């Protein structure tokens, strides 16, 4: 990312590009474990969406469809709070990692 100087910055460094932090891929923080979504066991309770600190639950239409690994930090709260007896989100080992943390 190119650093801007005072010539390009807005006065008072006001940020007019609302919500541009989506370019920070927090998924690179994950170390060792990641959640895995098992669609057929999902009861669509939306608790994972509610309790995900990094907004990493993919919702399409009115259904939970999976996990956005670009942002998932692997805290495991979704898996702990998943209510069915046979959980629809389980934590699995992860070895491969994203190389870059910036979408630009």
């Amino acid at each position, binding site marked *: 990312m190119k650093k*801007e100087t005072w010539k390009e*910055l807005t006065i008072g*460094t006001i*940020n007019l*590009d*609302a*919500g*541009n*932090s*989506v*370019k*920070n*891929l*927090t998924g690179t*923080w994950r170390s060792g474990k990641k959640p895995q979504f098992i669609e057929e066991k999902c009861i*669509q*309770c*939306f*608790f994972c*969406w*509610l*309790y*995900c*600190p*990094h*907004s*990493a639950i993919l*919702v399409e239409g*009115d259904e939970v469809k999976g996990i*956005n690994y670009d*942002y998932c*930090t*692997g*805290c*495991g*709260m979704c*898996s*702990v*709070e998943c209510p069915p007896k046979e959980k629809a989100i389980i934590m699995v080992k992860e070895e491969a990692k994203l190389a870059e943390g910036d979408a630009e």
Partner: protein
Amino acid sequence: MAKLKDLAAMEDRLVAGHGMCLGCGIPLIFRIVLRATEDPLIIANATGCLEVCTTIFPRTSWNVTWIHSAFENAASTIAGVESMYKALKNKGRIPEDKKIKFLGVGGDGGTYDIGLQALSGAMERGHDIVYVCYDNNAYANTGGQRSSATPLGASATTSPEGTQSPGKLQRKKDLTKILVAHNIPYVAQASPNRWQDLYKKAQKAFETEGPAFLNVLCFCPTEWKYDESQGIRLAQTALDTCVWPLYEVENGKYKINYIPKEKKPVLEWIKPQGRFRHLFKEENAWVLEEYQKQVDEDWEELNKLAKL
């Protein structure tokens, strides 16, 4: 009653890519609070975890008008914005039917300690604002110094446990009570694990004419030192042990929103947290007893107030 499905379909006002810790409680709180009103929103944010993590220059996680404030003046900032809005309405420069909501936000450091004077002033002047405090019991953003919201016996970097000290020696300040003493229309205490309760309270706060205050418990894996996947469970324990009772005070009338089926000992709340680990040493047993006594007293008093 709102369904999570419908809330999920609403636009995110706090988007992904912020730098908050694994298992942080703050985004969960604001996921609900920011959905409790559909009107345009202006937010003044005191320095703290939320402010620092969501606006790492040159990016921002906010999809609404957001003003950075210093530690001490988030309440003054938002009160000023609200006054401006009223003035412009009087002059006819904002249409009569245009509704904007005003939200002040701060952590326990910016609310219990440094911002208390500004908050008290804004509440007393009766601005039509909502102030939400996320209480994570410490200055978590700067490395976990003690705040006046840190509970008795907790180890913090400026009240460390050791041979000469059992952690923080003073009891937690009861800010909610201080706000009740301002005789404002709406004051409530909430927790992110009871999302319907939090949502209802946030809705009430936004609908209230005049100042409203929400004090929300916010678990913090970094400073409380527990397994980061257990945050919601831990918040439930805080409710079940009555360490953090859920109640609201509407025009002076107390109402308890959650009464545990069986009040659990404070020990269950203390056990999973590393910041209390030293309390299990023999010489610190008195702290546990004292903590339990204080919680019991507060719970009894609250029950009395709710029956009035």
